[in-house]
Structures are given as C-alpha cells and as structure tokens.
C-alpha cells in the first residue's frame, strides 16, 4: 500500500482497513444529524466508565453555518470525519496514528509531521481534553486528544481520540485544489464520479434551506420538545415493569440531546440567536449531555457493576 490512493473513497477504505488491523471495531455512522464525530455515542458515551473500548468509524457531520453553496474550495455544511477512540489510550497512540498516515500514502520520511498544541473543549458536551492538531507540511490533517472529562465526568481511564477531517486530508493526499473536483470513486471507473457529482447540488440546496428557508418557529419548538423528551426519558424509573429488568435509557435520552444540539446549530445559521442567548442555549444542551452521561455511568456499558 505504499502507492498513493487515487480517490476519496480509497482513503476511507484504507483507514478502515488500517484501524481494523489494529484491533478497532469498525462501526457505521450514527444515524442522526451531528456536528462532529465526537457526538456519536461510540465516542461521547463510551469514553465514560471503566470498560475498555476501541472503535473507528466515518461520521457524516453537519455545520449549517459553514455552508457556501459548494463554491468555497474547502468549506462545506456537510462533510465527513473519520473518528477513532481507544480506551485506555495505548502508550504507542502517536505511533499508531503515524501508521495510519502511512497507510493513506503520507510517507513520514518525505514530509514534515508535527504535533502542535491544541486543547480541545466542547462546551455543549461538557467535555475537554489535551492534545494537538497534527500538521503535515503546515496543514492541519487531524486532531489528537486525550479526553480528560466528558459530560462533567472525569475520564478514568483516559481515552485517546483521533479525528481526521476527511475532505481536507484527501484533497491534500490527492493534490486537488477544489473539493468538488476531487475524485470520489476510481477516476478510471466506467462511471467516474467527483465529489461535486455527489454533493454539489446538495450543498446548494442545504445552504439555501439552512440560511433562509428553515422555519425557525418550528425549530425552536423542536428544541424545546427534544429537551423535554430527554428529561422525561431520564426521569422514567429504572425498573421496567414489563420485563422486570432494570433498563436505564441513556442512549434514547442522548439521541434527544444530539437532536437539540443540531437544532441549535440550525437556529444559529438562521441568525435568530443573539450573543447572550447563545450561551444560554449551549448551557441547556450541556445540561442534557451531563444528565445523559450521569445515566450512562449507571448502566452496564458505562461500567456499573
């Protein structure tokens, strides 16, 4: 695999193969709209508690405010992240990461790869960690974080998290200047498709909807509903009368937290949230995230006996 990949999907496939070989469970994207791969419960919730974990997955991510109608060479309202989470973080986490760069055709002996300080903090998730942004020849190709806290809980043991911004990384590896020109599948395939063939139209459609059309009253109601439902789920007694088992519904509650977070992002893109309100909304999502984290650590997957 020393040769260079030729398409966007080949880079994804090589990352999947690499991390599978290193023992990660290759999960599928979470089936909800999220702002970043970190929101996937396989990261947010599984970083909590004492149970060991190793997972890698692609996560489609949405940032409505970043929409540029497909015109900007590298800004998109919908893009892909590749996410790796290993708990406890292995002592050779940096070497494992460098191995993944090699797998996608970045030869460390020809490039300048650097770990530059970047502390990560997610006010919406009540989470923070220390680590770096990784530079390859001056370009940020990944985020590397040792999680210290999630949902207000100390991470013990600590998870190591990697996030690759796939479009940007691929554009670099494939030497493409505009994301829409990037080959999505094999450029020699009978039906060769570029990133633009797949996503240009959707970028335009969503940018218009995000910025101008989305019904803010409806969205505001969605936010309130998600918030209430999350709380209601968590307030339900742990003992399920039907099965006679103890079932804490941390994941369904967390889905509502994700939903609230995404609705907030949409409202933000519509420009209806003032600076002061912004903090309040972020605080409300954080409250949900913390409550879900509290619930998850009571469950078996969360390490409760």
């Amino acid at each position: 695999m020393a040769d260079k990949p030729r398409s966007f999907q080949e880079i994804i496939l090589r990352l999947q193969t690499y991390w599978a070989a290193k023992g990660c469970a290759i999960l599928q994207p979470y089936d909800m709209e999220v702002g970043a791969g970190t929101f996937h419960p396989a990261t947010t919730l599984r970083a909590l508690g004492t149970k060991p974990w190793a997972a890698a997955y692609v996560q489609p991510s949405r940032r409505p405010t970043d929409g540029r109608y497909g015109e900007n060479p590298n800004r998109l309202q919908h893009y892909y992240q590749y996410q790796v989470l290993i708990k406890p973080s292995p002592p050779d986490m940096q070497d494992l990461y460098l191995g993944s760069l090699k797998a996608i055709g970045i030869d460390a002996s020809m490039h300048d790869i650097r770990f530059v300080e970047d502390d990560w903090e997610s006010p919406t998730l009540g989470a923070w960690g220390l680590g770096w942004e990784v530079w390859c020849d001056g370009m940020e190709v990944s985020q590397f974080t040792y999680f210290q806290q999630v949902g207000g809980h100390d991470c013990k043991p600590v998870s190591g998290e990697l996030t690759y911004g796939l479009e940007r990384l691929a554009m670099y590896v494939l030497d493409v200047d505009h994301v829409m020109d990037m080959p999505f599948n094999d450029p020699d395939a009978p039906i060769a498709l570029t990133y633009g063939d797949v996503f240009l139209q959707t970028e335009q459609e969503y940018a218009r909807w995000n910025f101008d059309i989305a019904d803010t009253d409806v969205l505001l109601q969605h936010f309130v509903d998600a918030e209430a439902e999350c709380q209601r789920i968590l307030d339900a007694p742990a003992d399920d009368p039907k099965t006679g088992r103890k079932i804490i519904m941390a994941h369904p509650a967390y889905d509502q937290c994700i939903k609230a977070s995404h609705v907030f992002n949409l409202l933000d893109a519509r420009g209806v949230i003032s600076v002061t309100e912004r903090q309040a909304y972020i605080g409300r999502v954080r409250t949900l995230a913390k409550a879900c984290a509290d619930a998850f650590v009571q469950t078996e997957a969360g390490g409760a006996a």
Partner: protein
Amino acid sequence: MPDLLIELFSEEIPARMQTRAADDLRKLVTDGLVEAGLTYASAAAFSTPRRLTLSIDGLTGESQAVREERKGPKVGAPDQAIDGFLRGAGVAREDLEVRDDKKGQVYFAVIEKPGRLAAEIIAEVLEKTVRNFPWPKAMRWGEGSLKWVRPLHSILCILTDEAGTEVVPLDVDGIASGNTTQGHRFLAPDAFSITNLDDYETKLKRANVVLRADERAEAIWNEATTQAFALGLEVVEDRGLLAEVAGLVEWPVVLLGKIDDDFLGLPPEVLQTSMKEHQKFFSVRNPKTGRIERFVTVANMETADQGATILAGNQKVLSARLADAKFFWENDLRVAKAGMQPWLDSLSNVTFHNKLGSQKDRIERIAALAREIAPSVGADPDLAAQAAKVAKADLSSEMVYEFPELQGLMGRYYATEAGLPSEVAAACEEHYSPLGPSDDVPTAPVSVAVALADKIDTLTGFWAIDEKPTGSKDPFALRRAALGVIRLVLENGNVGNLDSLFRRWIYGHMDGEAILSSINPIIAEINNGAASLAAISASDLPPLQKVAIVKAQKLTADLNISEIKSKTELGRRILATSEIEANNLLSFFHDRLKVFLRDKGIRHDIIDACIAMPGNDDLTLLVKRAEALAETLATDDGENLIQGFKRANNILTQAEAKDGVEYSYGADIKFAEDDAERALFAALDAANAKIAPAMKAEDFSAAMTAMAALRAPIDAFFTDVQVNADSEILRRNRLNLLSRIRNICLSVADLTKIEG
C-alpha cells in the same frame, strides 16, 4: 563530586510552556536537593519539544549526618504531653534520656539523622518534582493517575563521577529510570545510552536533536537571514515567533518559499499576520519596495528531496489561506469605497455592554466627546467628530472578523479607500493607542482627540454602571485605559479639568438601562405578585420609577429620559451619584498617576502632597507641580526646608491644641526682638511677593525655588529664637509668624504629606 543528568522524555510539549518548565525543573530539583542537605556547583536546564533536561555539576556525594537534641516535658508530665513530644521528635519512649534541669528532671530526645547517599535523595526529590510539577495545564493518560503535560514516556537519571556512571533508581507510576533516551522522532528513533552531559549533547546532535533552545533559535535566524540575503531580501524580525518556532522543532530545517504573485497586492500587515498566526511563517521583505514577497518556514525534518515536498505543501496551504484573505480584502474594499455605511449600520447590532448600549450608541457618544475635546488638543472639531464616527467601522469588516489583531490598521486602509481625509484615516488606526506603558502615544491632534474620547467614554461608562476594576480583576482593561488618558494628556497638552467632564459624562451614561437596573427589585416584586402594577401607580413612588416600571413591563414606549432626569427626585439622585462616581474615578486616576510617576522616579508622598492641593483634576498641572516639588526636594535647601516646615508645623499644632485657638494672623514685626526673627519677617515678605504671582502663573518651579530660599532664615530663627517665650505677647507673635511659614509652604503643596 558527581554530576547529575536528568531527562524527562514525553510526547510533544506545547512550545509556549517549555522555557518556563525547564526553569521550574531546575528550581524544584535543586531546592529539594539543598533542603535535603546536598550542595552543588552549578545547574542548567534545557528543553526541546519532547524533553526537559537538567544537568547539575559538582554535587556532594552524600548529606552530612545531623545530630539534634530536643528538650521535652518534665518527668512525670501527663502521658498526653509526652506522647505529643515523641510524635514531634519521631523517637520511641525508651529512647528518651532523663537529664537534670534547673527545675528538676526533664526528658531529652536525641535525634540522630544519619547522612544519606545522594542517589537516595535525588530519587526522592525527582519523584516528588514529577508528581507535583506546576504545569499550567496537565493531563492523565491510559490507566495511570500521574499527571504530566502530555504522556511521559521515560526518565533518564544518571550520576557520573571518576568511577563511572550509574543509574539513580526510581519509579514514578510504573516509569522506571534508566540511562537511555531517543533521538529525533523520524530521523533517529532508536534508543541509546548516555554517560554524562557532553556525551548526551553529542549523541543527541548525531541523532538530529539540538538540545539548547537558544542554539536552535540562533541557527534558524542565521540560516533564514542568509538565505534571504542571497536574494537581496531581509527577514522581518519577530522574536516571539522565533522563540515559538524554536520550541516546535528539535532539528530545525529552514526553507524559503515564494508567495504567489496574486497575493502581493495585499497589505503587508495582512500577509504578515496571516502567515504568522496560521502557519508560524516568518515574513521576508524586499527592502527596496517594502513589500513582503517571500516567507520562511522551519521544518523539523530533513528529506531526500531537500525539503521540496515540504515546501510545496506549505506553499499550497499558504495560498489557500491567502485566497481567503484576498477574498475578505476585496469584499471589504467594495464596502469601503462606497463609504462604509453598511459597516456603520451593522454596528448597531453589536452590543458593547448590555447596560451601555450598542457599538453604534458608543460611537455617537465618542464623536460628541471628541468634538468637545478637539479645541484643547488643537484638533479641528468637525474632523475629530468625523474620525470618531468611522474609527470603529472596520470592526464589521470581514478582515477584522478573521484577524481581530488587525483592527484599527484595516480601518486606516479602508478610510483611505473611502476617500476620507488623511487625519481621519490616521485616527482610525491610532485611536486605540497607547495600549501599554511603553506603547507610542499618538501626536496627531485628531487622533489624540478620538483616543481621549474613546477612553474617557469607556471609563465613565463603566463607572456609571459600577463595573470598576477590583483587585486583580479588570476585565474591561480600565486601568490600561486610564493610563492611556494620562499619557495622552501629559504628552499632548491639556484637556482641562477632568472632574466636571467626568460628572457630566457619568450622568449621561445613567440613562434608561442604568435606571431600569436600579428598580429591578421592584419589578421583581410585581412579577412574583407581591405588588401589583395598579398598586405601584397608586403609590407615592417617584414618578420616574413609576414610568420606568411601566416601561419595563413593556406597557408603554417612548420615555423621555432626559426630561425625567431633570425634573424628578430620581433625577436628583442620579446627579448626586454622578458626583460621587466622578470623584471615585478621579481617585482612580490619581492612583494610576502615582504608579506612572513612581516609574519615572517621583516618590508617592510627593504626588500625595500635590494631589492634596486644589485643581488636582488637571493632570498637566498636577504633574508639573509634582515635578517641581521633586526637583526642589532633591536640593539641600529643599530637604532642610521640609524639616523647618515640619518643626514650625509641629510647634504650631501643639500650641493650637493646647490653647484652643488657631494662630493664623497678625504676626507683627514691631514685636520682633531678635535679628533672626526680623530677618524671617523680611524673608517671608520677599518669598510671598514671589510665590503668589508665580502660583498664579502656574510657575511651580519659581514658587518652589522661592520657598526653598526660606530654608536659611527659618533655620537661623530656630537656632536663635525661642518660640515659647515667657512673654505671652512675644510667644503669640512668634506662633503667628510660624503660621505664616505654614501658610506660605502649604500654598505650594501639602508638605505635611512628605515623609521623612
């Protein structure tokens, strides 16, 4: 005398923390060793992105044995007392000795601390240091509980003497010490063993690691300037960036790259900021044109293609960044050339502070104030107001949104593009200055007027809403703003009396929002049902409060604040509060002024003596007075005059207290008996004749020289004349004479405040 070498090898340490961490390591370990009884000849610490290293030379091989005797309780004392003593001394009861003392038999503990080997002490001190290291932010990793800045991988700890090298054994959270380290992450990743500092530094260099940060910085700078020079170019100096870059690489490789022609039209500051902030590039300038044409990047890698791939990658990233910057610049230019109106309009949506309105409100106030101040600083009032109105327009521009540090500078470019007068454009940039105590103070009159108006509006605003700095908290940088006003005034002439300016401006800030916040408790009562709106209307609350409450309830709009302010009880209260706050703000200025003048070598008591005089809200006068007084006090006459004044004042104060009268008038030369007494009368007359007009002309220097000339006659008077004469007439006359000394001196400055 062994030498000690310690290396703490970790994942990449943030560049900004390295120097401090190396210092902390040196201090904590050497302090710990000394405290445990070791001594050393010298110590030095080093840092790279992946290691902190400490070298200590000439360490003693072991600590001295210590014998200490402690006296305890009497024999027969309660067990509790004896047990406490045993705990404190760390000995067992059977080890106590009984000795005869003056008051009987007493227990003695003899504590023998044997000497300890250096290795044992080092292990202890180093473990403690690692566990308690003062990183600004530390983290855990894996399953461990140890905290370090990033995961710690290995500890090298060796002692070397003539006999050879030995590892100092220790274990911190499963990391055992050894005598090996690794070289460059990619160029020489294998481990190798070390015997001493020289060996360490040599082997590291062979393994592509330059140990010393200053050596790395120097190599970077030399190589960069050499490469630039070869092309007839020069590297723009940036020491902060150089230090940072030296902390990002173990093996610096300097690469000089080209900036695409497309971007050379951008303002040089934009190129510089974008390259520095995002990419940590140095700017390379053409000295003939002053343009930034190239960049220097510092890689941490040697490659087979001499860095060609690395440079190409960096150039590509830069082009993408600069394409953004160019996009912003071009969009901004369109708005600027059309007169910047959309930016000014959008500032009304930007909140400055929720009690002080929007940026647009603030700009209106600054423009009014700049117009008012303009004549006293020699600026055209219309130009000053015009400049104030556009000075913050660039805050809405795309470039400043992306690079906040370019605020002001972009304003100047855009104002120029908008075709505004050059004084206005200059004020856009300069009105933020001075930002620090050593920052340049603007001198162009329009810039000075806007700079003063901006800062005074900020200060009076935050005083009006009671958001003053407290202790170390100064979130709105009000201390800096006050110092800015002080420096602007002192270096550019006078804005006159600050007190009335403060009062009027604070009063002006106390409008709608401030009033509403003062009646919030009442609104809360209405909201929770404890009081009804009807009850409020029927109550005998001052009318403004009623109206404001109604307004707060959104039941009516249109409240004419200024009318209500001038006609109501609450209005009068606001006026009184403005006066109090203006006074408070003036004291704040005086405190800042003291700090400022102290740095210029003027003692705080001298400033106090001048602040106590009337007209202390005129900073120019105040400083002139303080400088003259400091100068006078530095002379022999001046210093002794103070003693004479104090003596006169003390005698007077005592006599006045004793007699219950004030000796202030009526000294008559006809009762003078002594030559020295008559001479003092004459001297005081002469001094008065000079001081009064000099003070009127604000010529403090002349006034104080005249005052200092009183020294000899006062000294002679106290030598020859006894104030408390037997004759009551003589005594009273002399006391009244002393009061003339006091009055004359106090008309110049409050000398009672002078210390010593």
